[in-house]
């Protein structure tokens, strides 16, 4: 049987290597879930780019925009080809209001990231 490509079934948007998904300082009204590939999260400090994390499939980013009104705190770019699904703030908050357990996974991920930050801070303090 002839093998067919299943690209007709991809959901979300496909971003090329190096393409920006989110730009630091821009207003945000959605979060993103990585459906395929990888993305890199980085902050621009003057002319420098400081890499904060590399996120694989299944991770999400931009979640701060769901709960805060501020601008994007970091930029996100595709590493290789990445497929990313946009999750609308309004839809998500309406669903969380109806079913608060929907927020468990977001809280779990955020909690995990705080743990990682704690470890990073401890490492930095010990080297100072």
């Amino acid at each position, binding site marked *: 049987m002839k093998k067919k490509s299943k690209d*007709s079934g991809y959901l979300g948007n496909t971003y090329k290597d190096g393409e920006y998904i989110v730009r630091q300082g821009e207003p945000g009204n959605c979060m993103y879930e990585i459906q395929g590939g990888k993305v890199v999260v980085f902050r621009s400090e003057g002319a420098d780019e400081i890499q904060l994390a590399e996120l694989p499939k299944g991770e999400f980013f931009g979640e701060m925009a769901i709960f805060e009104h501020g601008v994007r705190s970091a930029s996100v770019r595709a590493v290789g080809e990445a497929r990313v699904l946009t999750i609308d703030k309004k839809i998500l908050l309406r669903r969380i209001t109806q079913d608060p357990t929907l927020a468990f996974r977001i809280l779990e991920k955020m909690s995990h990231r705080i743990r990682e930050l704690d470890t990073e801070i401890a490492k930095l303090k010990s080297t100072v």
Partner: protein
Amino acid sequence: MNNSNTTEKYKLKDGSRVAVIGGGPSGTFFSYFLLNMAERIDLKLHVDIYDSRDFSSDGPPGCNMCGGIISESLVQTLATEGIDLPPTVVQRGIESYMLHMDAGSVQIKTPTQEKRIGAIYRGAGPRGIKETQWESFDGYLLGLAKDKGAHVIKGRLEKVIWKNGLPEIQMKGGTPLTYDLLGIAAGVNTSALKLFEDLKQGYTPPKTTKTFICEYYFGRETIEKTLGNSMHTFLLDLPRLEFAAIIPKGDYVTTCMLGKDIDKDLVQAFLTRPEVKRCMPKDWKWDEYVCQCMPRMNTKGSSQPFMDRTIFIGDCAVSRLYKDGIGAAYRTAKAAVSAVVFEGVSAESFKEFSWPAYKKLEKDNKIGKIIFFAVGLIQKIPLMRRAILKMITTEQNRDDHPKRMSVVLWDMFTGSAPYRTIFFRMFHPFFLASFIWNIVSSIRIFRRRKS
């Protein structure tokens, strides 16, 4: 003291046994989220899912008879839950809707220009399917529930009785088994619901109507040349037809008709309409479908979809009117799980903690009926149809123009927003003013053309 004893009696404990009747989305969402939530609070449950279908089979043995659309809001909600729909399950990502009327056709693009609606098959695909690259959606969800620890058992429910205050079930050819909780996700197209109605404990099955679904084989290239990645919907003046859609999948195309007791005459009347023919390939013949079914669909939910140690989930309880049945399965499953894990499995717990979410769907359906009635009236008046077409065409051609009609129809066709939201958008003064302006403008154009 008595109250707390009763409450404790109906709480699930380590080792409690749960039987889920039905391995479709309602049953698998319920099992998956039940095990997931139990794990969070260190509660060890034993979950058995019973289903007689083989989702790897083509045609009726593996099919749960459905149009096969995962709504925009459900795709996003499932992604938030950590359930991604892979391209091996999603046969086609839908990025726009084509609205066809006698006055013409217009494309309504997704607000984010992103593929966020999934076209899937519930089973392996239509009878005699020519390729097997895609997985069944129901099979995929069942796999997720299995990975969480559920046991999947092939079987058809034959008998239910109560023994020492616990439900006892017997599958065809099997021995009786006692459980602490039954999750009934059997769907409105099975005979299992009669068993629970006969128990005379308050459960009455939902009211239903007949629908029509058929499948055509076009091949992927032909689909891309004709239907593309758009779902095709129709606003036609055909009595009893509430909604009709043509959904492109991988190599096949699903045609779906919803309304009041669809019969063969109505099917033929719809499929031979020029509006349908113009979006199909030139050599297409309306009666050459490879698979067809006339499943029943929930139009009014059960008045009491729960009893002690038994909760009904999905369309055997309540569903969304004409749309997003899988989304309703998800929502009822989550509402049931919250009650089961945190409140207990008594009828009182279900009434207090699951029933409000179920009732919300039912209330929304009442508003949906008003909307479909209004759309039915519009379908009958050519001038109104022309005004809709004009309004959407203007909105879609100008980026800066407010997309009032496009958003209303998008949410109505996709099932992305509650009917209540759509209703308020329809009766917003700006929407009405714009619609009236388009009606007047259509009259002018019509008169000019006539003169």
